[in-house]
């Protein structure tokens, strides 16, 4: 039996390295799976795959554009899963999508399909604690780690429940807003990281607005690592090849490793 996303990340963290999870929107280009390989080769600890949805309420312009492009190219959950099943990468893959795609059949069928294709984690940003019960049960039954989001606005009581119920890692939002590149990391991110680290031994990763290597390194100092999405997708939408995206991920990897020394 393969280890879970959480076990994998904890083992990686145990080697002393900050965790790095780059993102790609599935289906955004015909060769999007090459991007996944490039990320894995560049030192990613896991890869997040966006399953595109027509109305991505928590995404900024870059991921919206990537999602629209993927949908226009005929991307569907079924097609993504077929391609994922052919991937040969040695790091866990995590699906990121919205509730409407999860509830199309039943949450149990959705989770079973993800696991069957080899995915080990799932992030559903519009499914907060209030609505996550059935999905969390379905994911647990399939051995799929359901990652929950923690926000700067979350109360301490909510953060405690989020850290208890999240699996894989806890996804800490650096700021109140949508995905997208940003110039500065607000002070509230550091505070949220410290608070979450005090509540759980589960890995805590920062996401939203992690735009360049130095920022990634700075944030990783307040938690266990980072998710990088829009910065990579902007480059991809502007024509960057998988190799170039891999090089950028490698540069973030180096910054993280240097920062950890």
């Amino acid at each position, binding site marked *: 039996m393969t280890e879970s996303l959480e076990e994998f990340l904890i083992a990686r963290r145990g080697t002393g390295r900050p965790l790095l999870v780059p993102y790609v929107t599935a289906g955004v280009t015909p060769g999007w799976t090459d991007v996944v390989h490039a990320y894995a080769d560049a030192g990613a600890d896991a890869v997040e795959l966006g399953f595109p949805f027509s109305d*991505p309420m928590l995404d900024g312009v870059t991921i919206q554009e990537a999602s629209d492009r993927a949908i226009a190219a005929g991307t569907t959950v079924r097609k993504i899963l077929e391609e994922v099943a052919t991937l040969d990468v040695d790091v866990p893959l995590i699906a990121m999508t919205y509730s409407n795609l999860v509830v199309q059949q039943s949450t149990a069928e959705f989770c079973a399909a993800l696991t069957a294709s080899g995915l080990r984690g799932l992030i559903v940003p*519009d499914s*907060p604690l*209030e609505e996550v019960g059935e999905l969390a049960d379905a994911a647990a039954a399939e051995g799929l780690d359901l990652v*929950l989001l923690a926000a*700067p606005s979350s109360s301490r009581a*909510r953060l405690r429940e989020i850290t208890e119920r999240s699996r894989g890692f806890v996804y800490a939002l650096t700021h109140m807003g949508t995905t997208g590149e940003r110039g500065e990391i607000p002070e509230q991110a550091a505070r949220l990281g410290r608070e979450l680290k005090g509540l759980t031994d589960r890995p805590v990763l920062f996401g939203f607005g992690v735009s360049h290597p130095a920022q990634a390194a700075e944030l990783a100092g307040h938690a266990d690592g980072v998710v990088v999405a829009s910065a990579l997708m902007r480059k991809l939408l502007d024509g960057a090849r998988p190799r170039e995206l891999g090089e950028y991920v490698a540069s973030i990897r180096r910054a993280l490793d240097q920062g950890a020394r």
Partner: protein
Amino acid sequence: MGEMSWSGRQYATVPAATRAMRDPGATGRFGTYGGRYVPESLIPACHEIEAAFREAWSDPEFRSRLDTLLTVYAGRPTPLTPAWRLSHELGITLFLKREDLAHTGSHKINNVIGQALLAHRMGKERLLAETGAGQHGVATATAAALLGLKATVFMGERDIERQELNVLRMNVLGAEVVPVTTGSRTLKDACNEAMRHWVSSVDDSYYCIGSVMGPHPYPWMVREFQRVIGEEARAQCAAELPVGVPDYVVACVGGGSNAAGTFAGFVDTTARLIGVEAEGGAAATFGRAGVLHGFRSLVLQDEDGQVTEAHSVAAGLDYPGIGPEHAHLRDGGRARYETVNDGEVLQALLCLARTEGILAALESSHAVAWVIRAARSGEIAPGSTVMLTLSGRGDKDIASIKELL
């Protein structure tokens, strides 16, 4: 349970679960619909608004302030007008609840004054709103001006072209109108953009949702603020009609706020409740269960779960979902949802204008169109009484009507 006969005067048995449109409780569920499908970042704001609304709604001072503004500012109660000539033509007795005569020209003002008072009470400085036809945007801009708040209104680029007059009105009222250029560039995308903006400005901004949609407590709260339509109409019918209650209560449905407010006044009576959707945006008729804009309901979507664009002659009905309580009323059989097409709507608009001297909004004309069709086909039995909520006036639609003629 829920079996309805649509001929003669056999009335539906009202299922207990939907007998009254009441408080959906902490989970915000109407049966399996509703809920709070928003990112964690917005959850504290939803809780804060729910707590503030519960407190305000049971505070006599708040209610009295709202009632006063609805009376001296918004022009309530709106009249119940007998449609004499059209009734004669159709062989029925038709009454119109005249929300077109409310300040700003539609029922939207009822909800917006309520929410603006709440935002003010919560210490918020800015109202955010989405708008389709522009009526909710205009109402929001109006209430913001009245209470000294700022207003930012998100509107699809395509709707901005279709509703130029309302964009000008919002500007004159001091609101900022933000064109939304993503997706179908209509109401659905304006909702997405308003949500995104809300996430990043939740400390000082209040999202004033314009219909019975969005995360809990909005569907419930907006229905409560619109309940005034149904309660007034109920009392007016009681005074006007020999039997006190009409046979049919009819309203148009986009997200469904004027219908929800209307139905709330009649849900515990024998009246048949009819919501009329645009054929190209009929989520209650053609939708499947899904999650959009923070709530679970019936949603127009393709087989892969991508939300499809709604298309109709009325920008205010171009919404691919329906309020969660409507989905629940439909499933329970307490309300029935019908569709009419653009051609019928235009004919109905002209018919009402020429028989009654009332220029209704294209949205409201959907309800009129169904009544005309159903009365002519005999589906509404001759001699029946019909109470129709005329949600707004048609001045804003003159340019569209000119093109269609």
